[in-house]
Structures are given as structure tokens and as C-alpha cells.
């Protein structure tokens, strides 16, 4: 019975791993294809399609656009999320629960609908489609997340330490800079990292709100129109590599803190 259980567990787990890794493996392997179609038989390895990606000005500029939108919109989202979390934790505000609910509400709505709503009001207000508009949308989806993460880490314990700092003569600015921010740094870092990941990968909002200058997922989407293409494999593999490296760095930074 025990042995059978172990055996079936191993087979099942391997089958699920195979299912999970199949598309990624196919993506990466056929990005090294030397001929024009990413389908069997494998004709590589060749770095031809990676060179094609790096020499494509549309893709490289989309990459920089994506980075800029991810970094700036995440900083705005974290700043707004932090200020509001701090405000709610430190002061008793009238209708606090309702306001907190309002700020977290966008978490429950699909990106497609948020993007469409923004498109509607931007149309009405005559705001042109561009990266700034997409950035505004990314703050809308990430602000509730940042708020929720940072707010959940602000307990009474933190408030008492702040109070102690103030009793010891620290100014408000000093309390914020030397006490509150260092205390909350893991939460702030985590929400910044998550926001950047979501913004980096976000498609629908950027698709609806940008026109010529656009982000990488939208540019990849445009590539898809040409059907199966090893160049798409190469971009996809590069994005995957970048994300995995970022995730490892994130793990290491958070892990390094733990033993202390």
C-alpha cells in the first residue's frame, strides 16, 4: 500500500511537472531554431532569432517603454499606497472602513473592464492614447495591492515605536524617514516588486490605451499576427529569463533578512 502510494505519487507529480514545463520548454528550444518555422524538426541551435530581436528597434524601444512604465507607475502606486496605509493606521478617520473598501475595490474587477472604463473617460476628456494613459491604468490596478500589503503590516506595535521616537524628540520627518520606512521596508519592497511584475506583464490596458509607442506585451501581440515565428520565441524566452532572474534576486533579498 505504502509503496504503491509512493509510486503513484511520483508518477502523478512528474506528469504534472511535464504538463507545466511543456510549453516553456518548447518555447525556449525552438527559439534556437535556425530555419523560419518554430516547429519540429529542430534545426538549431542558432542565435539568429535572438540577433533579430535585438536588432529590431520596435522591440527594443517597446522594452524600454515597458521598463519605464513599470518603474514609474509602481513608484507612484507604492507612494500612494504607503501614504494612505499610514494615514489609515495612524488616524481614526470618519468612514474609514468604507474608504479602505473603496481603495481595494479595483482588485475585484477585470483588467479589461478597468482599461475600457479609462478609454471611455479619456475619450470624453480628449486625452490622447499614449504610454502615460497606460501608466495611469497600471497605477489603478497596483494601488489596491500596495495599499493592502503595506496596511496589513502596520500594527499597533509599529505605532508604539513611532510614538516612542516622537517622545524622544524626533520630528515628524525624522520619524517617517528613520523609523517608519525602515520598519516597513519588506512590505514596501514586496509591493514595489509585485507592482513592477504586474505592470511589466500587463497587456489589455496597454493595448487599449496606447497607440504607436507601446509596451512589450503589446508589441509581442503584434508579432503574433505573423503566425508562428521563432522571433516571437526568442523575445518570449528573453522576457522569461529576465523575470526569473528578477524573481531570484527578490528571493535572495528577502531571504537574506530572515536569519537576523
Amino acid at each position, binding site marked *: 500500500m505504502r509503496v504503491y*502510494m509512493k509510486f503513484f*505519487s511520483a508518477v*502523478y*507529480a512528474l506528469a*504534472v*511537472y511535464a*504538463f*507545466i*514545463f*511543456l*510549453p*516553456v520548454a*518548447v*518555447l525556449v528550444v*525552438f527559439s534556437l531554431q535556425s530555419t523560419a518555422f518554430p*516547429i*519540429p524538426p529542430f534545426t538549431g541551435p542558432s542565435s539568429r532569432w535572438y540577433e533579430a530581436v535585438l536588432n529590431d528597434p520596435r522591440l527594443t524601444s517597446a522594452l524600454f517603454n515597458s521598463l519605464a512604465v513599470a518603474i514609474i507607475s509602481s513608484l507612484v502606486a507604492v507612494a500612494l499606497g504607503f*501614504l*494612505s496605509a*499610514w*494615514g*489609515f493606521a*495612524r*488616524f481614526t*478617520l470618519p468612514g474609514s472602513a468604507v*474608504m479602505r473598501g473603496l*481603495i481595494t*475595490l*479595483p482588485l*475585484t474587477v*477585470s*483588467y*479589461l*473592464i478597468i482599461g*475600457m*472604463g*479609462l*478609454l*471611455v*473617460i479619456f475619450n470624453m476628456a480628449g486625452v490622447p492614447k499614449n504610454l502615460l494613459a497606460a501608466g*495611469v491604468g497600471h*497605477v*489603478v490596478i497596483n*494601488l489596491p495591492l500596495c*495599499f493592502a500589503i503595506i496596511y496589513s503590516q502596520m500594527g499597533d506595535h509599529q505605532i508604539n515605536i513611532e510614538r516612542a521616537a516622537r517622545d524622544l524628540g524626533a520630528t515628524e520627518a525624522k520619524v517617517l524617514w528613520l523609523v517608519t520606512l525602515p520598519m516597513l521596508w519588506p512590505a514596501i519592497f514586496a509591493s514595489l516588486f509585485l507592482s513592477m511584475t504586474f505592470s*511589466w*506583464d500587463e497587456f489589455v490596458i496597454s493595448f487599449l490605451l496606447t497607440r504607436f509607442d507601446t509596451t*512589450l*506585451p503589446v508589441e*509581442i*501581440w503584434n508579432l*503574433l499576427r505573423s503566425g508562428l515565428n521563432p522571433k*516571437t520565441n526568442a*523575445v*518570449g524566452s528573453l*522576457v*522569461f529569463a529576465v*523575470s*526569473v532572474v528578477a*524573481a531570484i534576486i527578490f528571493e535572495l533579498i528577502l531571504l537574506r533578512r530572515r536569519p537576523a
Partner: protein
Amino acid sequence: MLVTPALLWTLLFFVAPFVAMALLSLNFQAEGGMTVANYSQFFTNPSYYRAMVNSLQVTGMVTLISVLLAYPFAWILAEQIPPRLQRLALLLAILPFWTSYVVRSYSWLLVLAQNGVVNDALLRTGLVTEPLQLANTRAATIIGFVHFFVMLLTLTIFASLKQLNPSYRKAAADLGAGPIRSFLYVILPLTLPGVVVGAFLTFVLAIGDYITPQILGGNNELLMPQLIMMQIGRRGDFPLASALALILMAVVTIAYIACARWLKIERT
């Protein structure tokens, strides 16, 4: 005030768009005209109505299959793998999470294409003589979704299995329950709320997604997000698109209320 910027942002870029969409969907005119024509169109035009039925069927299937696949997998990770390897096993299980969403669907297209890897393998082994039509089908959409949500659900179910107090299992064993009875009567009921939350998340994220059905399912049959995008893109019909978006949101809200009520009953 510290909370003002965040509130203003939410009001301006989240609440206001909703109000605008609601007014637009009713063809609201300043002179006082209003009509529910866009909504009645949804209920009378079978192709619109059909998209909602398709969406519900696909999302339901995806949620069910993902839970059934992920639960045993998470259980194996949590119970059968030595603790020091668990973190690594879990990290590996969600590694493909880090491919971009658009690229992930494209990768499945590569796998399922007419001359893709799966058909190639099937033809070589002689299991089929003609390549199967796998891409641009409902099955392809479901596979693409399941791939994503198995990873998500494995993570959430693993977490709820790990949170279980090991003394429950010991108590069950002391009272004479074998491993199967202990699982059915103790572990499964205790992890069920976590599963329901994960399943709800799957439902909400899948029903609102445009990318996967558009890339993998093609245009043979439309799901709600595809129908909405079609109104915006090809037809520029914002009032109808707004009405459809609000109907979709209403469905999600109903699912949310059902889920919240179930969890409440479960807790008391």
C-alpha cells in the same frame, strides 16, 4: 491628509470610468433620454447571449479541472516530498508563472499547432494518421487556462495543507481512522475553504481574460471578453461594449456573493 491622493486617484480613474460606462450603456442623453436597448440586445440577440454561455461553460470547466489536477499535486508536494526539498519543488512548480502572459498562450499554440510538437509526436508513434485540429478550439483555450491556474491553485492549496495542525491527523489516527478516512473526513473538509477561495479566484480571473481565448480559441466561438473587445475594436460601439462589460461584472459579483456566503456558513 495622507489618504487623499489615493482616494482621489481611485475616484478619478476607477469610479468615474464606471459611472461613465454605466451612463454610456444606457445611451444617457443630457436632455433626459435613456434606454435599456443595449441590455435588451444582450438578452434577445442569441450570439451575444451565446458568448456568456460559452464563457460560463469554459470557466466552469477550467475551474473544475484545475482544482482536480492541483489538489493531488499540492498534496504530494506537502506530504510526500521531504521538507527540505519542498521549497525547491514548489518554486519549480510555479517557475513558468514567470513567462509573460501573452507568451504563455503563444507557447501553447506552438505545442498544439497543426504541425506542432504534439501532432508531430502522435504522427511519429502512429497513433493518428492525420494531424489533429487542436489549436483554435475550445479545448485549446481550456488547456491554456488550466496550465496557468494549476500553478496558482497548487500554491494556494499547498499553503492551506501546510497550515493544518499535524495533531489533527494524529488525533484521527488515534481514533482509528485509516489514511483514506482521515483524508476524507479530516484533511479535505479542513482545506476546503482554501480550495473554494482559490477556485473563486480562478473563476474571476478566467472569465475576464481576453488573451487566452483570443490566441488559443480563435474566433470560431466567442467568449465574453472577446465579444466586448470586438465591440470596441472593430465596431467602435462603446455603449454596447459598456453594457456587456457591466453584465459580465454582475456575473462575477453574483459568484462573489455565493462564495462569500458559502464561506460564512462553513465558518459557523
